[in-house]
């Protein structure tokens, strides 16, 4: 029994995919970095020294403490220092990363679901619906995500009750970023659908009067899995950056629940005044996160080698 499991694991580890992973130091390092960051963020409530989102625990007098140096008023010491509100930068980065990652993952999931379904519909139904969807995709591609986000932000604000705007900001970010990423998914899936649609089994199913849609999905999705995975990874990095940029422009996460972008926006104001840690640590974290995800995406692209345009 044990041997069999061992065999299975051994075989799995020896499969091409894992083999290529084991032999790519870049992939291993970036995977470890990304995993550490994600786990660090997810598990933050269990070990972060402070909860920066609970204002009652903040002491303003702790503000601007330098890393590892006792605060001149309160005598408290913070690993990475504190920001302008006396929030522990280390904890705030962890909690901020939760928001960045949540927005990133949710936006990519949204883009993926939207893109894959529209791609399937466009490829399968064809005709004017296909033309319409692909034209929308073209238009979407010409509009940079930032402008789309600002537009959606402006409109959504008008429809959201005032007491839900904090939550709204996050969802608007997700929708805005998701909307600017779905096209890639749709194109790949549409292409695969077009190829698969004309294959015999689908035609046969059609002739038999059976609904071929389900069969189609079952056959296409495995084919495009690689491409979708690669696009999703790269989109995740893009989404994290987009979130940071929008939050930097002030149309993003609220300042009382700062994401990495908001933190950088706050820290940017203190670049010249010597409080470098407020900008530097979140910026390095953002860079590490985006870079490791990007590197993973790059490696995935090589390893899975999907036909990507």
């Amino acid at each position, binding site marked *: 029994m044990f041997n069999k499991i061992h065999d299975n694991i051994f075989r799995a580890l020896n499969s091409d995919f894992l083999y290529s992973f084991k032999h790519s130091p870049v992939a291993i390092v970036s995977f470890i970095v990304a995993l550490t960051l994600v786990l660090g963020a997810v598990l933050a409530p269990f070990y972060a020294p402070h909860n920066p989102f609970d204002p009652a625990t903040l002491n303003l007098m702790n503000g601007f403490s330098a890393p590892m140096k006792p605060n001149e008023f309160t005598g408290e010491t913070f690993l990475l220092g504190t920001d302008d509100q006396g929030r522990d930068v280390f904890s705030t980065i962890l909690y901020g990363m939760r928001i960045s990652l949540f927005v990133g993952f949710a936006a990519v999931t949204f883009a993926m679901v939207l893109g894959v379904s529209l791609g399937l519909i466009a490829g399968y139904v064809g005709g004017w619906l296909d033309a319409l969807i692909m034209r929308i995709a073209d238009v979407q591609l010409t509009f940079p995500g*930032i402008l789309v986000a600002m537009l959606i932000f*402006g*409109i959504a604000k008008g429809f959201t009750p005032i007491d839900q705007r904090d939550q709204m900001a996050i969802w608007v970010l997700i929708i805005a970023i998701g909307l600017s990423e779905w096209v890639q998914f749709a194109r790949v899936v549409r292409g695969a659908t077009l190829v698969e649609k004309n294959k015999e089994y689908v035609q046969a199913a059609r002739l038999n009067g059976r609904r071929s849609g389900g069969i189609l999905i079952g056959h296409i999705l495995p084919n495009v899995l690689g491409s979708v995975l690669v696009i999703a990874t790269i989109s995740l990095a893009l989404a994290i950056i987009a979130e940071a940029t929008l939050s930097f*422009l002030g149309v993003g996460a609220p300042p009382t629940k700062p994401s990495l972008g908001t933190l*950088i926006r706050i820290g940017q104001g203190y670049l010249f005044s010597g409080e470098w840690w407020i900008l530097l640590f979140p910026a390095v974290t953002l*860079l590490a996160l*985006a870079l490791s995800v*990007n590197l993973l995406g790059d490696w995935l692209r090589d390893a899975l080698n999907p036909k*990507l345009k």
Partner: protein
Amino acid sequence: MLAFAIRRMFQSIIVLLVVGLVAFSMFNFVGDPVDSMLGQERTDADVERVRIQLGLDQPFPVQYYKFLQGAVKGNFGISYRQGRPVSQIIAERLPATLELAFVSAVLAIIFGVALGIFTAIRRNGWAANTIMSLSLIGVSLPTFLIGILLIYIFAVELGWLSSFGRGDVVDLGWWRTGFLTKSGLLAIILPAITLGLYQMTLIMRIVRAEMLEVLRTDYIKFARARGLSKRAVNFGHALKNTMVPVITVTGMQIGSIIAFAIITETVFQWPGVGLLFINAIRFVDIPIMAAYLMLISVMFVSINLIVDLLYFAIDPRLRLDKTKG
């Protein structure tokens, strides 16, 4: 081809109408312009007077119709904040943005294409690998951060380049250019790098990917088998074929350069339309915002059109109907 052009033109107009509608409706939510215009010492009667003057008392469709009517004639009304025709303000600001976008685009395309080719031809070389890794750092750093860091290093710490603005400009009557003065040329360096860096990495990665794809094709193998020189194969054959897909992406990147200029212009206080737009949002200057979005859409749509036409120029397969007929 004519039919194609007409169809694209028609689609473009629909796109513009939709963008106009979306943009215009957005402005109903960003804030009440009257408040920001009147300042603290205002009476309710003032508010009412101004609302009527601006036509804000009319129903939304009427406002939109009036807006479109004017827009067709290039008349976007008068800026609430500056009190001058929007078209005039945009005309003043546009050269700054276009010059910045132009320099960044040229930088991005030249370096992007060159590095893309280099990394494709020398794939697996250490230099190419280093460039590829660095490029990932480039796409992983948000633009605003790059701008701030560049200012900090080159303007504040080293004092080599100016930290903001366009330097001295020369007024050619219809165009204020910063290209003719030393300070103007020095001033454009940092913002152009900031703006172009991201696009450059993207172009580079796309060129590389496409080039690798093309280098694997039969006609490249055949070209090599015919004994053509490396130069002729790489630059004569492979590059031209690479360019077909790259042109689309590059076209869209140039579109985004103009939109991304919002961030760069904010960081560098570059007096272009992006900064104008951000200011307009702050002051709820609806005519400016509407005009800006329409302008951007027109640019995107024209860039798309140009890209499509470039396809015709570069890819004979699309010219089928002409040569056959």
